[in-house]
């Protein structure tokens, strides 16, 4: 048997949340986040534990993505500019590594949502709601 119970209620919202998180990172930055925000707004009251868990993780993950990818780059630009080659080495390596790690969290989250399981994003996630059981 799987290690955590399979939940079915709210699976559609959970999968949609993880998909929009990935859309924001991979296809349509900004638009994906707005749609995720709209989904969270509509479903936030009375969402089943599975949906609530994935909505919370993806929203938090997206906000962290904004901080890690946009604000960190902005700071580098403000502090040092993009004139020196060493700045490019740091920025591109950092961006690629950070971005792909965030995408992997989404891929794993999506697979959990498809399997009807709650899962907390490591480091950038939110605590799981009651009713999720052992994740």
């Amino acid at each position, binding site marked *: *048997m799987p290690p955590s119970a399979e939940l079915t209620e709210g699976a559609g919202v959970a999968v949609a949340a993880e998909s929009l998180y990935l859309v924001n990172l991979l296809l349509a930055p900004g638009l994906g986040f707005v749609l995720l925000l709209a989904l969270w707004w509509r479903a936030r009251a009375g969402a089943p534990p599975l949906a609530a868990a994935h909505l919370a993780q993806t929203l938090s993950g997206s906000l962290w993505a904004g901080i890690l990818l946009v604000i960190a780059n902005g700071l580098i630009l403000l502090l040092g500019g993009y004139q020196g080659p060493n700045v490019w*080495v740091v920025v591109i390596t950092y961006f*690629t590594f950070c971005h792909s790690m965030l995408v992997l969290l989404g891929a794993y989250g999506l697979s959990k949502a498809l399997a009807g399981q709650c899962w907390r994003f490591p480091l950038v996630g939110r605590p799981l709601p009651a009713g999720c059981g052992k994740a």
Partner: protein
Amino acid sequence: MQYQSQAVAKPYFIAAIGLFVGQILFGLILGLQYVIGDFMFPEIPFNVARMVHTNLLIVWLLFGFMGAAYYLVPEEAERELFSPGLAILMFWIFLVAGALTILGYLLVPYSGLAELTQNSVLPTMGREFLEQPTITKLGIVVVALAFLFNIGMTILKGRKTAVSLVLLIGLLGLAVMFLFSFYNPDNLAKDKYYWWWVVHLWVEGVWELILGSILAFVLIKTTGVDREVIEKWLYVIIAMTLITGIIGTGHHYYWIGAPEYWQWWGSIFSALEPIPFFMMTVFAFNMVNRRRRNHPNKAAVLWAMGTAVMAFLGAGVWGFLHTLAPINYYTHGTQITAAHGHMAFYGAYVMIVLTMISYAMPMLRGRTAAPSNRSQVVEMWSFWLMTVSIVFITLFLTGAGILQVYLQRYSGDPLPFMVVQDKIAMFYWMREVAGAVFMVGLIAYVASFFVGSRDPEATAVAGDSAAA
């Protein structure tokens, strides 16, 4: 082991691991030659070390694929292998031909090897990755045909499954595409054009089918998820692989003299190439999440999960990084390509072969399903040592590549190639250290076959979450 003839996979796996050790050894020599130019010169010049490093990789992966097919197909076809004797004969032919070729690279100057092997009769030598003498290439064709006959007859006479048919299509494609290595036109643009039909359509085409089918097989066996579910994923993944990968060949045609439209076709389709790798990640984790049992071979499950993640990172993310034509204009042939090559080959193909070896070897050595716990602990250490060090190798080469592009091709006052090489030497040193850690991981991997070999077999613990 369900079928006695599956045992023929064992020598293939042992040879694969042996050649893998050789490949990494030459990788370390090569890495040092980047910073100490005359290291081991003239005994092993840079061009020879590089040729041995890449050729050994290809040969040991082929041994791994063949071993995997010989283990997988009888179980899928639910019958013994058509001819175990032929499989063993081909093993020795391939091993001896491979060893003689490598010795030829090391002991005879390359031009002398060309003369010695009568390359002028049918010239095929001198192209990157396809440096093998023509006679060796012919040997590879004979081995591949005999192998396909053996596997094909087994499948035709037995149960046909999506896994075995996708594997067969992948192996057939591997053999057919290799035939373009015999086409060697004088026109350099045409030469490059068809050379990629071997290289690209192998690694970003038919090899992905082999990868997908082996991963599906191991996931069926280790998770107990319904075959139908896994096969549906496999269909979609291979469809996306071929849709994106075939026209994605265009990303190699940007600057070789091919028509300009390839910059559009190549950019668009290769930008989609990460999709099948992304799906593979979701697929692998989803199957493990939905598993019906906990397999006692946790190391094999770890390798399978690792394959999905690292293939996505190496082939998907690092491939996308420099695949668009306007970016590739600056990055083409720099250390960014080397970064992508290292992580993609390790993530997609090295790891899938090690996944299969990890899954099958315990049964080939007489166990029921898994090695002992001690053996698995050492194997998992090797997993993490090799995987983390390849991530660092990739990051260091990426850093070197970005600096190289900037200093050599982007800045207002571009520097010459060798001056830039001196400036990025620190990255090469760090890469060498990471390479040495990789070697430690590989030694641990080999040791895992000997540690705890007399201990009792590991058993699954209820509720154990394996590698997930």
